[in-house]
């Protein structure tokens, strides 16, 4: 089977769901479940049918299928399925702020949009040309504009939507302008055809274009100083969309970043040193900002927003030391540990009607199993050994030390990890040290229960045995 067909199937699924949505009455949660099931089918197709997929010759110029592309497609599909499942279990909150009651009649599009985003993400993983990268990225971003602002009866969600729209549009502007300059300097849109040894390449122009691109990517991944939108948008957006933003949108940003920057980070590139220096500086600033600002957060969703900035810092460090395998690995486990946290957050948000850290007080007494799963997730995000999160940081540090990136950056990164221990453990503290505000046991919906159990145990399994993920990247 040809790999691009799978993306076409995904888009087809989205259109079918939109049609189906128009002809169903009442609660639309069924659409969400059908979408998740459909994507699960596509995931199986991706994993089985594409053992030796080949790209047709006419597509080769802008589409390529390799193990990395496949890996990121799997991440995109898994993230989308999890977002859909989370939305289904969180329908009460979503419904309250859309149709204004518990009916769930206005949620149809909310379950269809992620499918289109997913198609965009999958295409992006294979795109090998500046134009197709741009188009795929916009498909993802435009769907996100709608999803962030979807709870239209909630001021926070609307505010987040506007902020995201304006800054997203601004970053798109930077991206297009940057692409134009890079095209002007190198004379090609095809990333594999870029030849930096040609004498006529003007370094200044190229660097200017790359700087614009770095700014645009910085917006997408939340790198300092382009990170300011992240906390507000993350806090305001519906929780499943926040999870989606923090995993899939970030992964998309990094995928594009790796693809576009790769030719310029090669050993023969004349701009390699400058580009690396810029990446180190951005990574250091991102690490410091994310970690230091997270310390004082009292809202769990905001805390996760700052933590996502902090993780972007580590990932940028990985890109700076040109170790893309580690970055890809990190993104994969980041999905697992972040979704564990968000599933539990969505559950608590639904039942306590609050997403502050106080809402988790005494969770250890109210629901020990949930509390231990969240503890595992926090430990993984903090990077405690024997959890998958540790391997992510370990690989990044290892290659950073191996490639001799600046000692300052490494020192900042190590201090950041130690800071992380503090703010992630603050959640653990709330769950176990503090007494619950009410003793009513939390109701855990069926889907959430199984998903959390699977995610938390895979954090431990990959924490001891990370090789399976790396095998996917071979």
């Amino acid at each position: 089977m040809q790999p691009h067909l799978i993306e076409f199937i995904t888009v087809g699924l989205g259109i079918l769901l939109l049609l189906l949505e128009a002809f169903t009455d009442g609660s639309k949660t069924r659409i969400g479940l059908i979408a998740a099931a459909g994507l699960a089918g596509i995931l199986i197709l991706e994993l089985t049918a594409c053992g030796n997929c080949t790209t047709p010759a006419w597509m080769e110029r802008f589409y390529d299928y390799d193990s990395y592309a496949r890996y990121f497609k799997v991440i995109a599909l898994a993230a989308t399925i999890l977002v859909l499942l989370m939305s289904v279990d969180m329908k009460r909150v979503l419904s309250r702020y859309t149709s204004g009651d518990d009916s769930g009649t206005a949620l149809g599009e909310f379950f269809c949009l992620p499918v289109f985003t997913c198609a965009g993400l999958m295409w992006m993983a294979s795109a090998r040309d500046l134009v197709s990268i741009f188009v795929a990225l916009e498909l993802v971003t435009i769907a996100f504009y709608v999803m962030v602002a979807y709870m239209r009866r909630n001021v926070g969600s609307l505010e987040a939507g506007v902020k995201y729209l304006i800054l997203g549009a601004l970053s798109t502007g930077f991206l297009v302008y940057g692409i134009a300059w890079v095209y002007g300097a190198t004379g090609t849109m095809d990333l594999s055809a870029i030849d930096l040894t040609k004498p006529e390449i003007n370094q200044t122009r190229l660097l200017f274009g790359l700087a614009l691109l770095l700014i645009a990517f910085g917006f997408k991944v939340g790198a300092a100083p382009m990170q300011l939108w992240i906390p507000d948008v993350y806090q305001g957006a519906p929780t499943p969309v926040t999870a989606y933003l923090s995993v899939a949108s970030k992964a998309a940003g990094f995928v594009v970043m790796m693809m576009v920057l790769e030719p310029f980070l090669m050993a023969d590139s004349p701009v390699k040193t400058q580009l690396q220096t810029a990446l180190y500086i951005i990574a250091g600033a991102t690490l410091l900002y994310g970690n230091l600002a997270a310390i004082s957060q009292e809202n769990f969703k905001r805390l996760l927003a700052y933590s996502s900035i902090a993780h972007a810092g580590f990932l940028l460090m990985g890109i700076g030391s040109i170790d893309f395998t580690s970055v890809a690995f990190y993104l994969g486990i980041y999905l697992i540990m972040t979704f564990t946290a968000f599933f539990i957050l969505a559950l608590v948000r639904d039942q306590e009607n609050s997403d502050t850290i106080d809402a988790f007080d005494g969770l250890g007494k109210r629901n020990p199993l949930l509390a231990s799963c969240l503890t595992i997730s926090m430990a993984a995000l903090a990077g405690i050994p024997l959890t998958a999160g540790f391997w992510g940081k370990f690989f990044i540090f290892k290659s950073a030390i191996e490639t001799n990136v600046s000692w300052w950056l490494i020192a900042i990164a190590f201090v950041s990890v130690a800071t992380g221990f503090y703010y992630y453990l603050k959640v653990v503290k709330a769950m176990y040290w503090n007494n619950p505000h009410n003793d009513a046991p939390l109701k855990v919906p069926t889907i959430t229960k199984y998903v959390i159990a699977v995610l938390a145990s895979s954090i431990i399994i990959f924490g001891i045995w990370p090789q399976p993920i790396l095998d996917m990247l071979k």
Partner: protein
Amino acid sequence: MLFAFILIPLLAAIAIFAGAPARKTALSAALLNILGAGYAASTWNCSCWNTGFQVLENPDIKLSLGLTGIGSVMLILSVIVTLAAVYSGKCPEGREKIWFASTMLIAAGAIGAFLSTDVFFYYAFHELALIPTFLMIGILGSGNRKAAAWKITIYLALGSIVLLAGLILAMNQMPSWSFTDLTAAPKHQNEIALLLIIGFGTLVSLFPFHSWAAAAYASAPAPVAMLHAGVLKKFGLYGLLVIGMKVAPEGMAHWLPWICILLLGNIIWVGLVTLNQKRLDLMLGNSSVMHMGYIFLAVAALAANENNSIAEPAAILLMFAHGISIALLFSLASMIERKTSTMEITQLGGLAKTAPALAFLFGLAGMASIGLPGLANFAGEVMVFFAGFADWKDANGQINMGWVQWTTIIALWGVVISAVYMLRAFRRVFQGPLVKSTETATDISICDKIPAYLLAATLLLVGFYPQIILQFINIK
């Protein structure tokens, strides 16, 4: 096979969380481990114990366990202290789950670290104790428990992250992360040694990275204090001996003057701080920090001269002896608090009249800790001082006093300091007239005696026959 030693406490912890009777499960796990460890130690030389599987191809990391001589000693220490820890302390009503499960998790982490024959998992298992410790001190500690819990967690996290930097820098130059592949690193030895000294040093409470220890031990529930001060703290020293000296011998020698100064900080500075303590638990916590200095002295002797034949056995023996004696002291201190509901030395007195068995055991443990002959610590300390002074003459018979020799001379005064604070505390707590808090105190029950006599007997046995521990170590 060796996986059983880690899995037994780990599964016990899970079972306790799932609702199994907490105390009984923990006790049977600890007993099972002690029996297994006895058998394993008697056959430690057999390569049949080595086991493991590959978890990562590049870098080459295996989850491999094996029994080395030093590892066997630490295994025995771990299981003995674990059993005593399960018996010790008074668990508050209704908190049995977290109390015993955390104790089991900490024990599993310690045992896992000492059995690992791969640097990565040696490091990783140690961190298994981090969150249980954080929870135990934070929920069930005494005094200013929240501050103490944060302090120990942040310090240990920072220390282990510095350590990780050092380990990565070193292991990047090795063919694999296995202990058997450790050789002197061709590059960056000074940086590696510095990072390892600070990293392991923080975990061992080397001066000036020690301030977390006393507060945390004083606040921690008895089992946590026993396991941490007795077993987990030895992780760093074990690491310096087994990894640090192997990968960066020249680097360690380079920093020798600093090691000497810092270890004197432990022995003299912290010794004087200990003298000034008004609370029994803080005094014990500080004394445990102080005694780390002696073990560091052995490390320094080894750093100064790799061929120093008694430095390593001395360090191991003292690590074992200190682990047992400090665990016994913390266990007894928690009993004193339970009987008299105070830890202030000034509010205690004459306890020997109402609780003679407690007084006898505390006296024995105190004597052991200050190094009275016949008890295990004496054998260790004497060997450390011999090791420290070993090279005072060069090959031509000329007197050649180096950093280590001078340090040893100053360090000897530490023995006087510990005698002063320990004997003074004993006199104030157990002798003199009865006071309000001790009038109604009762002697310890049979249940309390079991762990105390177990540890006390170990101290005596090793004191009279140190060979029982030294047989595990090749004296060159």
